[in-house]
């Protein structure tokens, strides 16, 4: 145990400054006690009482007294150096203003700094998201609730309040929207135009808006409702409000409604509303019949209506690969290779693909099947024709969504390629804000690895896919397509075409 006592004559520091300095110095290695004080009688008595003084120091009230105790001389010397340099340090004068104003911590605080705000985009954890949406509504904002894990009861309460306040509630679990040309959440950069969308499906909205863009049409507004909106408990409140808003919007001339199969009563009410809204309405309630059977058809119907034309739906291409191409892909397969393995990041794409494949190939296995009989007992293990949505909760628990992080899908691609049954691996590649900045690059790497494994086993695996995106997206659809084509992926313009091509390769078609 060593000790040091040092006097700095005539040096004054405020007692609080000295306490802070002492506290900092006592954190140094090997230091047991530090006290820097002005040597007043009272302070010296305090030091003595604390056992930090041996003998009375020759110092007065205008002198600074430093006492250090520690394990060895070196530690004490370091401590004394620390104090001395701190005492002699002249802090820079940059105290002005307290730095930048801190960001607001809540919707209300944000609104008080920016009273012109008109929408809240909420993507905080689900357990808090309902409350945030409630606050936004009470403060007079329209709401896009990206978060999921919000209860149906909360959703109904929010949408009821929204109706009372004349506010739009998009979500919960609303992944994408385009309002006044601004992409919200996972949205693509599409041409402005006169077609307005309301969708209960995020990837459905992305596919239709991108295909409309590709066909030369444009989007006025794209409103998401969240996947549960058209269930009977929620009653289609958001879609109805969206439809009303688009019907009243002078910038919208054609309206498209998109959903997985809705509750029958809700569907009927929506169809009645659509019929009486005064504008052409294209309806794509996947699997519910009527209107557009696929997302691609919906896009064609909408663009035709926007141009004052009639769409020739019956003559849309089955897919874009000619018979030779299909034959070549089929010829590369061994006799045991007969299965399609669709590894999707978009739930609606998985659903639409099952709707297309089932009539052609019979029952499809899935973690979220069309019929309960098709449920995979192990979602991590494919069998026969399998279509899985890797964005499903069972796959995303504790992991980022596959549109953001391609690792899980990459592993699954390799796993499927190692399976002797696999003939076609079917992929969606979703671009736009929020998505991974180079999905094609990620997938190409996994595809390369998968091909090596298949080749080592003497097999060839076909990859079929489509890019949901536009050239204006941050990832650039054309460039992504180039990378995928380079990796040997057979690309189609839409999900529906990709599904049909996959089916043809395994032998369903002509």
């Amino acid at each position, binding site marked *: 145990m060593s000790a040091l006592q040092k006097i700095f004559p005539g040096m004054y520091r405020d007692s609080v400054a000295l306490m802070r300095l002492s506290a900092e110095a006592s954190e140094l290695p090997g230091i047991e006690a530090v006290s820097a004080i002005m040597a007043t009688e009272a302070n010296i008595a305090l030091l003595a009482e604390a056992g930090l003084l041996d003998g009375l120091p020759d110092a007065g009230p205008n002198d600074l007294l430093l006492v250090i105790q520690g394990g060895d001389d070196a530690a004490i010397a370091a401590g004394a150096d620390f104090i001395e340099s701190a005492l002699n340090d002249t802090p820079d004068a940059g105290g002005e203003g*307290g730095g930048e104003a801190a960001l607001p*911590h809540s919707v*209300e605080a944000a609104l008080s700094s920016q009273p012109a705000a008109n929408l809240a985009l909420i993507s905080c954890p689900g357990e808090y998201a309902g409350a945030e949406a409630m606050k936004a509504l009470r403060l007079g904002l329209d709401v896009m609730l990206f978060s999921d894990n919000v209860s149906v009861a909360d959703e109904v309460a929010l949408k009821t309040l929204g109706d009372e306040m004349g506010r739009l509630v998009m979500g919960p679990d609303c992944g994408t929207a385009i309002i006044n040309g601004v992409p919200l959440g996972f949205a693509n950069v599409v041409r402005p135009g006169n077609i307005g969308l309301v969708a209960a499906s995020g990837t459905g909205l992305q596919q239709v808006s991108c295909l409309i863009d590709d066909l030369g049409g444009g989007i006025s507004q794209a409103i998401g409702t969240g996947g549960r909106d058209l269930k009977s408990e929620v009653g289609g409140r958001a879609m109805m409000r969206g439809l009303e808003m688009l019907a009243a919007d002078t910038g919208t001339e054609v309206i498209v409604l998109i959903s997985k199969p809705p509750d029958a009563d809700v569907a009927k009410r929506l169809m009645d509303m659509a019929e009486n809204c005064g504008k052409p309405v294209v309806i794509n309630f996947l699997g519910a019949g009527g209107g557009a059977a696929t997302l691609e058809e919906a896009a064609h119907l909408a663009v035709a209506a926007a141009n004052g034309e009639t769409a020739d739906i019956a003559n849309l291409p089955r897919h874009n690969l000619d018979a030779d191409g299909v034959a070549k892909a089929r010829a590369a397969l061994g006799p045991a290779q007969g299965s399609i393995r669709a590894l999707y990041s978009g739930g609606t794409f998985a659903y639409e693909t099952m709707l297309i494949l089932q009539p052609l190939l019979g029952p499809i296995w899935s973690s979220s099947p069309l019929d309960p009989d098709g449920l995979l007992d192990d979602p991590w293990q494919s069998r026969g024709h399998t279509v899985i949505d890797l964005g499903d909760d069972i796959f995303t628990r504790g992991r980022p969504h596959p549109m953001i992080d391609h690792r899980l899908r990459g592993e699954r691609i390799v796993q499927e390629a190692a399976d002797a049954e696999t003939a076609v691996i079917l992929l969606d590649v979703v671009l736009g804000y*929020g998505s991974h900045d180079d999905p094609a690059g990620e997938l190409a790497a996994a595809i390369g690895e998968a091909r090596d494994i298949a080749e080592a086993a003497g097999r060839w695996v076909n990859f079929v896919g489509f890019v949901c995106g536009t050239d204006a997206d941050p990832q650039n659809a054309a460039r992504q397509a180039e990378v995928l084509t380079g990796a040997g992926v057979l690309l189609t313009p839409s999900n529906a075409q990709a599904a049909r091509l996959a089916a043809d390769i395994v032998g369903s078609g002509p």
Partner: protein
Amino acid sequence: MSSDLFHSDLSVVNVGLGSFADAIDGAGGQAIRTDWRPPAGGDVDAGAAVAALINDAQIDAANETAFANYLAAQPILEGVGRAGDCLPGMGERTITHSGPPVAWQDMCGPVKGAIIGAIIYEGWAADEAVAQALADSGEVTFAPCHHHNAVGPMAGIISPSMPVWIVKNSSSGNMSYCTLNEGLGRVLRFGAFDGEVLERLNWMQDVLARVMDAALDVLGGIDIKTIMAQALHMGDEVHNRNAAATSLLIKALIPAALRSGLDQAEIAAAIEFMAGNDHFFLNISMAGCKSMLDAAHGIAGSTIVTAMSRNGVEFGIRVSGAGDQWFTAEAPVVDGLYFPGYSMADAAPDLGDSAITETAGLGGFAMAASPAIVQFVGGTPADAILRSREMQQITLGRNPALTLPALNFGGTAAAIDVRKVADQSVLPIINTGIAHKEAGIGQIGAGITRAPMECFAKAVRWAADNKAGG
């Protein structure tokens, strides 16, 4: 009613993923970024309760009334009186303490020590053992100072014979009281009760009180807010630093005392006593703050905090619309700066009514005024300014009578709304002294602490229930 979303420029409050805000800005929209954190410190139920209270017209109206009353208050230091005669409802066997209600057996060391001292001082018992027995017997009533329009620093002990500052809000007439500051070292408010302590208390009762009262009588009262306002421009935040305010007070009192006709030796002793204690003004500051906040108390439906206070066991807050109800949580031990030889292990949990100053927008809320003690908040004046700015987020407004030069002479943040605290998970900041956990040792450090979220979570639940029921 219909949304006019399509007819206005999109301006989006972004709560959550920051990349969404980047996309909005990149596409020509306006994103308002937030540093969102789970409300009510992550208490989901309390967070939901807050959501139902946001932008509530009735609460907002009640709060405006409470805030206006607070702003209009003009606390005048009128004189010094005897606690038993002044404090409403104080019986002759009542002793008041700081913080929310607490039973004798549960009290912390300094409070118990101060109560023993007060019992001996009152002459109800001759020594410690008898005083202890009397306290045990239940014959003495213990109550929070706040229930008797009073406040007290640290243990906050007020017994009937003690002199108290008399403060009247000349705007609405409410009265507030606080003891006179004994100085530092071995003092009753830290639980010391030896002969020296009692002797000082007797002198304060006999001499100091008489001189102060006579001087104030000559002056016709002192406007407390004016002194506070000046002191804020002279480096005080009038909680942990009162050097300027004390000087201003002495400057006003000396000539008046000399004109009072009292004995010169007594006047000299009183002035010497004041001059020897930089914290002499603290108790007047506290009574003044109590005066302003009591004016805001009792407005039905209001969610404004009218007191934050600690008894060394619990931290409690009072809310304007909730009457004498307290919303409490365990009192934290302050992680501050300690005098040589002491550490957190020696400290009593947070103690005293002095957080009434923060409740009124002073103390920690006015840290930007007090560069001399900014070391408590990280060391630089910029940190202090940041703290004072941060507090503006949880208050209804600012007090234009109490301004901060460092904030371009903007008013101090005032009128804490429990909804804003819970909504943003921003906790009120408090400058405080730290008492030793054993009676009588005294102050062992000082620092800053934050009021516990649990108090505010309970208060918003009360407000939600109150609204549903009312």
